[in-house]
């Protein structure tokens, strides 16, 4: 092929040649080119549709998007082509969100229950009546000195929504705020916090040469799905990057990989441990690994040198041979060895891990082993590897908290159950309310939260929600009539995200940070109101100070005007016009840990060295200094720098726990709670006691649905609405089960009847059932059941075209609420079940 430089030289001398002939095109009349991308036209009239930049909220990825409005109706959603996160790519879920706005089972007015809980009998009330009712309960509890009995439990509230709604409840005086993170990815986050401080990792597919995947269905579903998945696809398609995926199931991610490595459920940690063994025994740590170990803690001695660290790791993994791991995982020893070598020697390579690794009893240790493999190979926190994530840093308007905040201790598991629930233990909130020893709410406000559907042990959850003695007053803030909303006493009609404002901040795989906003495509239907606006009204009724902002839109405006960069680009007006902004002069963030800290910082007044951890910190008192960094509550907030044998460095700063500034893989925090401080293989207790008839139930997600919030979207329900249980032919035959048979799946907490999908795309000994399906409410498309007080056709001509009659079965009926003992992650992949033909 010709040299490009020579083409350009040709270009320089051919300027006069081009006038030789007559031109085909006339271009002078077009002064400026139209803006590229994000244009849409009515297919019937040809008229240009109004394009409004905004942001998705179908899943936590929250991609920047573009809504098209024609004659006041939202008709289409696509991606915002100017987003550096998505680069103009969007998933089916995001496009299907257009169905939320006009869901015929949407709630458009405040509703008060008039019959028994769950009886579907409601009367419409005014917003004033509804808010008076809530304010009266809040006043009563504040006057009684029990603001903590007002419990706000959300499933999804991020960025400015979290700031305004959470800010309101803290300003009122309750810290009884629950979330859903442990049901999703909390275990991954805590394990990362224990090791490198930040809770989220980014996989740099733009620069990698090899992807080693332990249990992430990254191409179908991920908490930063499209921004990472499209980069991975490009790396694979354009650059020939290979991915190897360990999974019990041939997910679409595994299917697109160079190789799917089937593995027994919950044994990924054993394979990781054996890979570390290979790296250490074959000296593959030499070079990059040795260099990185300077910043890694693997021994009690924080001043250990690299040879001592290597010796400690070798000792720690000496029994984890590939042959040992083969017996546990079913993965051939030769495969483990070959992949360990490949990962260690392909530079750079990225190690990917998610719920297939972490949603187990041993998930925390699995993730720590993953971090250790990255550390000993030096495949960490640099381009092409797993890196600490970067998001947008908005400068939020302040909402002053109450002087005293009280909270019910019901969010972090039963006493002694979970060691470091840094993202709470959502799955035990209802059981703890039932238990009652740590108090119960007087008012339980659910915001984008469906505890009956999202938790395990659904039967118990429904009983608790129905019991007025346990839950005297339940408020559901929801745009739709759903599986939990049906048990509320009061429903506030929330807006779907297509009618909201938000300033958004999700992680940017370009490692720069993208600022973006959500703005309404259309005005709210009926009397629906965004709850983040409603809290400003409640604040007025209660005399609660919400700071400068007067509404959520105002809060977003102030964030745009306060945040450097966004402000300089044109602030709120710029963001409304473009939707996204990033600093074009910024370089991707990487390798902050090895930045030397000047003496003036770590020897500043008030900064002391904690010798046990090597951490320079600023204790609040003499007593704290004496107690030491690790033992002082919240000491991580006072971290300054890390002393290492070769200097003082910024290190991997802590974020939620009192870890040192090393990549901490010998954890005094875990030791203090009775766990092995060094990453360790831990078998899953229930799996060690399985009988010949027992199987492991594992769960998964589909690309066209989020866990529980999208089945009401008709486009998406049409794509995926039924979830037969995957079962291997060998396992099925032993039970007399054939493809399509009705089967019963039984566990210690319940049973479900579903259909069998007999397939070799899953290993023997496991049965896999997806989430998303089996709604008992959530509207006609999700469950076949209309919301109360809605008619057959209400504004939806498409309903007559609904051709499917089955809505699948939800596996959570048979999955107990059972947290990882270290971090509280709900163990979605561990349940032991029996499967029989019906």
């Amino acid at each position: 092929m010709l040299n490009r430089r020579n083409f350009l030289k040709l270009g320089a001398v051919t300027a006069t040649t081009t006038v030789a002939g007559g031109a085909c095109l006339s271009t002078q009349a077009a002064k400026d080119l139209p803006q590229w991308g994000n244009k849409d036209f009515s297919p019937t009239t040809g008229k240009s549709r109004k394009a409004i930049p905004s942001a998705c909220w179908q899943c936590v990825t929250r991609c920047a998007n573009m809504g098209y409005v024609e004659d006041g109706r939202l008709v289409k959603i696509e991606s915002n082509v100017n987003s550096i996160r998505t680069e103009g790519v969007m998933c089916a879920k995001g496009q299907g969100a257009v169905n939320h706005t006009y869901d015929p089972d949407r709630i458009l007015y405040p509703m008060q229950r008039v019959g028994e809980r769950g009886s579907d009998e409601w009367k419409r009330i005014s917003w004033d009546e509804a808010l008076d009712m809530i304010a009266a309960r809040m006043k009563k509890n504040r006057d009684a000195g029990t603001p903590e009995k007002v419990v706000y439990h959300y499933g999804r509230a991020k960025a400015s929504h979290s700031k305004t709604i959470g800010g309101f409840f803290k300003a009122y005086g309750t810290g009884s705020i629950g979330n859903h993170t442990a049901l999703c990815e909390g275990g991954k986050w805590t394990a990362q916090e224990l090791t490198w401080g930040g809770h989220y990792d980014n996989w740099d597919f733009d620069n990698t040469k090899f992807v080693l995947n332990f249990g992430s269905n990254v191409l179908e579903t991920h908490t930063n799905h499209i921004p990472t998945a499209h980069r991975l696809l490009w790396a694979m398609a354009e650059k020939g990057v290979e991915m190897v995926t360990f999974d019990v199931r041939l997910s679409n991610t595994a299917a697109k990989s160079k190789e799917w490595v089937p593995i027994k459920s919950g044994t990924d940690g054993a394979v990781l441990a054996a890979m570390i063994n290979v790296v250490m025994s074959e000296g593959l740590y030499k070079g990059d690994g040795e260099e990185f170990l300077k910043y890694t803690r693997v021994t009690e001695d924080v001043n250990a040198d690299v040879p001592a660290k290597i010796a400690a790791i070798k000792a720690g993994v000496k029994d984890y041979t590939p042959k040992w791991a083969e017996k546990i995982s079913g993965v051939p020893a030769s495969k483990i060895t070959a992949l360990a070598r490949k990962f260690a020697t392909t530079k750079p390579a990225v190690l990917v891990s998610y719920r297939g690794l972490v949603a187990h009893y041993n998930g925390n240790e699995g993730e720590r082993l993953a971090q250790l493999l990255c550390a000993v190979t030096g495949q960490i926190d640099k381009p092409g590897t797993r890196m600490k994530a970067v998001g947008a840093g908005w400068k939020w308007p302040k909402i002053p908290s109450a002087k005293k905040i009280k909270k019910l201790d019901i969010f972090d598991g039963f006493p002694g159950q979970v060691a470091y629930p840094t993202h709470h233990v959502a799955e035990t909130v209802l059981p703890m309310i039932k238990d009652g020893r740590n108090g119960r709410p007087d008012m339980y406000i659910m915001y984008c939260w469906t505890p009956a559907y999202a938790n395990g042990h659904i039967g118990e959850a429904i009983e608790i929600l129905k019991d007025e003695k346990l839950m005297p007053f339940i408020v559901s803030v929801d745009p739709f009539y759903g599986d939990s909303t049906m048990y509320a006493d009061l429903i506030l009609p929330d807006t779907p995200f297509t009618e909201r404002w938000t300033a958004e901040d999700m992680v940017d795989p370009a490692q720069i940070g993208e600022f973006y906003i959500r703005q309404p495509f259309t005005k709210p239907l009926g009397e629906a109101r965004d709850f983040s606006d409603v809290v400003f009204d409640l604040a007025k009724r209660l005399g609660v100070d919400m700071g400068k902002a007067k509404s959520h839109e105002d809060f977003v405006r102030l964030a745009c005007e306060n945040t450097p960069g966004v402000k300089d680009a044109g602030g709120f007006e710029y963001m409304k016009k473009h939707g996204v902004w990033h600093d074009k002069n910024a370089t991707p963030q990487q390798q902050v840990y090895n930045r030397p800290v000047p003496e003036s910082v770590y020897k500043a007044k008030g900064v002391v060295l904690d010798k046990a951890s090597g951490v320079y910190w600023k204790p609040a008192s003499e007593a704290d200094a004496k107690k030491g960094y690790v033992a002082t509550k919240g000491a991580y907030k006072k971290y300054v720098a890390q002393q290492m044998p070769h200097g003082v460095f910024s290190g991997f700063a802590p974020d939620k726990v009192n870890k040192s500034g090393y990549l901490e893989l010998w954890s005094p925090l875990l030791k203090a709670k009775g766990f092995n401080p060094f990453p360790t293989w831990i078998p899953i207790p229930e799996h060690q006691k399985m009988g010949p008839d027992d199987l492991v139930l594992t769960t998964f997600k589909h690309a066209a649905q989020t866990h529980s919030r999208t089945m009401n979207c008709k486009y998406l329900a049409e794509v995926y609405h039924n979830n037969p249980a995957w079962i291997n032919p060998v396992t099925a035959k032993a039970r007399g089960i054939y493809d399509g048979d009705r089967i019963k799946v039984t566990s210690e907490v319940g049973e479900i009847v579903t259909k069998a999908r007999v397939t070799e795309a899953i290993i023997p000994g496991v049965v896999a059932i997806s989430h998303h399906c089996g709604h008992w409410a959530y509207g006609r498309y999700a469950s076949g059941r209309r919301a109360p007080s809605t008619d057959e056709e209400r504004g939806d001509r498409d309903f007559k075209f609904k051709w499917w009659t089955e809505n699948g079965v939800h596996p959570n009926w048979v999955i107990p609420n059972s947290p990882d003992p270290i971090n509280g992650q709900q163990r979605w992949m561990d349940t032991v079940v029996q499967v029989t033909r019906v």
Partner: protein
Amino acid sequence: MTAASSSSSNGLARTAIEVSNLYGFLAAVFREEVSEHFLAQLRSPELRQTLTDAGITLDDSLLRGPDQEVLRDLAVEFTALFLGPGEHISPHESVHLPQGGNLWGAETVMVRKFVNALGFKYAEEFSGMPDHISVELELMAELARREGVAWEQGDTDGAANSLSYQSQFMAEHLAKWVPTFCSKVMDIAGLSFYRDMARLTVDFLESERTDIERRIDIAKGV
């Protein structure tokens, strides 16, 4: 990478203008028979040397033969290759796509829509079909020229906008059929001139496919 500094902006402006010129040159090659003026240009020492540097050595006969004879040979070759009658290589996109095969197919309409959506028009004197290779190359020339102007003015958003159109048109049209078209020319052409021009076209487009994305990244500050 960071956003373009003023010095790199100058370099990018120069690149875009050179790219634009080369698209224009190739558009002229395929648009019609070589004219007297064009032949004189080809014979100029500067262009000859640059072509040689680019690995293209023009035939002695083309360089030294009598003008009218050379022009006639080139015209006969151009007609046989691109016009017919009889078997020839139609220089229109819709003919060369696997799903196509017809003149004035769906792709022809797509190209015309693309051109019109940008506010451009087909010249009144142009009598060919809307997806002629010279139309497509001229369109890219104009987009690269506008990109160059944007870089000169420090308008990175404008450069990114023009590049986005180049990227889209390259992916949706040129890259889909021109390599096939050029490979047929290289197989059949009797005179080395059209073989060389076909090779130059393919290599240049291949190089531009990558470089457009590089320039977009710079313009967008990615």
